[in-house]
């Protein structure tokens, strides 16, 4: 009897805590979403007026017809996709080799991939700025793509090594007996089998490239500027158009949020399991 009661009490407390956690996770973003839909004055009180008839899509219409917003949006999409593709093409070969071949300096290389994460981007900002300008790639999409690729590759490689190592070696031996050469083993056996993991790496690469603010701020000025930079510009030092800022925020976050939720299974596996094992 008393055991059953403590168990019930424990369950109730647990569910309440979980509910609070979910509110904590979702409320801030939900609030921004409301801000983008309702007139600001309706929300800035103790009892917000959430009458659906008040919903206005004006700010979305305004932003999505504003060339100064659409260009950065297109830039972000192009840069994000190109960076992802480049990271996958370059990274998968590198990761496969690290995972499958034993050579001296292998663990140092892997550790190095992780250590690169420790480098503050700011350290590299000035030299990169000078480097890109020297090659005429300041404020270009190409310059941004190459820079992002370099920054994201180590993490992507590190993640993918874990996925390739997980594959049973007997499969690749079977492929050798079946007559595959090294490249065929990789492209026909290893890559398809590691696909879920590689997809997680790709999603991570895209999210990182899409979300970056600092490098884009430093390495672009007008023509290649990206969505986060444009969105941050709504936030002046003193004045701020809340509705537009919230709308831009929602638009900036929406693609990566959707991607994260759609690919959640892979991402959680990819991000976390490799890390826990390593």
């Amino acid at each position, binding site marked *: 009897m008393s055991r059953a009661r403590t168990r019930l009490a424990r369950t109730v407390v647990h569910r309440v805590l979980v509910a609070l956690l979910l509110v904590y996770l979702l409320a801030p973003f939900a609030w921004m979403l409301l801000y983008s839909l309702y007139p600001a004055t309706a929300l800035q009180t103790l009892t917000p007026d959430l009458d659906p008839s008040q919903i206005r899509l004006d700010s979305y219409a305004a932003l999505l017809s504003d060339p100064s917003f659409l260009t950065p949006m297109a830039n972000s999409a192009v840069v994000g996709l190109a960076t992802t593709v480049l990271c996958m093409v370059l990274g998968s070969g590198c990761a496969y080799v690290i995972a499958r071949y034993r050579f001296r300096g292998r663990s140092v290389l892997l550790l190095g991939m992780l250590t690169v994460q420790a480098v503050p981007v700011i350290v590299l900002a000035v030299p990169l700025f000078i480097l890109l300008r020297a090659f005429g790639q300041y404020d270009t999409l190409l310059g941004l793509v190459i820079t992002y690729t370099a920054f994201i590759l180590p993490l992507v490689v590190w993640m993918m090594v874990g996925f390739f190592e997980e594959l*049973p070696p*007997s*499969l690749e*031996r*079977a*492929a*050798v*007996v*079946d*007559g*595959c050469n090294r490249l*065929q083993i990789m492209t026909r*056996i290893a890559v*398809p*089998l590691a*696909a879920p993991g590689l997809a997680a790496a790709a999603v991570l690469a895209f999210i990182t490239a899409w979300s970056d603010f600092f490098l884009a701020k430093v390495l672009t000025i007008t023509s290649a500027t990206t969505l986060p930079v444009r969105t941050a510009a709504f936030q002046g030092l003193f004045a701020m158009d809340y509705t537009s800022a919230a709308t831009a925020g929602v638009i900036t976050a929406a693609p990566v949020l959707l991607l994260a939720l759609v690919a959640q299974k892979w991402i959680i596996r990819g991000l976390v399991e490799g890390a826990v094992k390593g």
Partner: protein
Amino acid sequence: MATIELVGVQKDYGRGRKAVRAVHDLSYTIADGHFVSLLGPSGCGKSTTLNMIAGLEDITGGEILIDGARVDDLEPDKRDLAFVFQDYALYPHMDVRDNIGFGLRMRKVDKAETERRVVDAARRLDIEHVLGNRPRNLSGGQRQRVALARAIARRPKVFLFDEPLSNLDALLRDQTRSELKLLHAELGATSVYVTHDQEEAMTLSDRIVVMSRGKLEQYGTPYEIYHRPATTFVASFVGKPRMNLLPSARVERGRYAVGGSTFTVDVAGLDAEQVRLGLRPEECSLRRAADGEDASGEVKVVEPLGNVSDVTVDLGSALFVVRVPGFSELTVGDRVVLGAERATVHCFDPTSEERLTGADR
């Protein structure tokens, strides 16, 4: 059809001072069409040997010849052999049909021929109805069959098996074992089969290679391995329950006391003072000692198995196992007399552990 020759084959891991020799100087010939098992405990080098024949691992010394041609420099796919892996190694991203046909596709066999061979192999193994399935939707036994079909469809000169039955449950294992034997009889291709299970090796093989610690212990027919074990290792590894192997001293000419006890056996043709004597439990007999009779020892454990019982006898200085028919009426503590009249006495040199053939009748 193929003969496989191993000539002084060696395998070292690591280099220089840190090198560890995994396989020592193996030399034997596997005759065309024979089914040969590599038998030994884990880590004895049997899988390494198989991998070297396959070309999945390079050899560090010696040479391997198939049909007289040296193959140890060839890529695995140029050696015309098929490999059945312990975990089957089915490609999870391909359906059964593609799994079976993959090796043929890589060899540019034309489409119609590939399909014909895939279906033929599937029919032989009774898996035609799952050709469109992915491996993960198959049962363990079906996966095993797909792995076999993949090997068969290639029609190679040589089949290599790496413990292919060890992932099956006991019932399925026995069934598949018989089928494997049938299959070999049908195809007649030279087969090398790695196992740590002596039963599999005995039932399937024309010849058995017994290995231990990277060395060849004995190469012979199942009969020879069982009845004429060449070393104490083979004697104790093959046969269940294990052979009683006890150091024995000569008490008089042609008569030895087993394990320093009062139990003696007659051995003709031996000159040695000290030998290691081997007696198979199922060949020895046991009876309760009569009152006043000198007993060989006392019953320590009785393990009934149904049709037989294993009785462990404490000889005072050593333990001795006898397998008796049916449920034994003996109980722990009974004083018993051992008999070895019907038994083959295996004699081994106590230092070299090799068989003393002088005692063989």
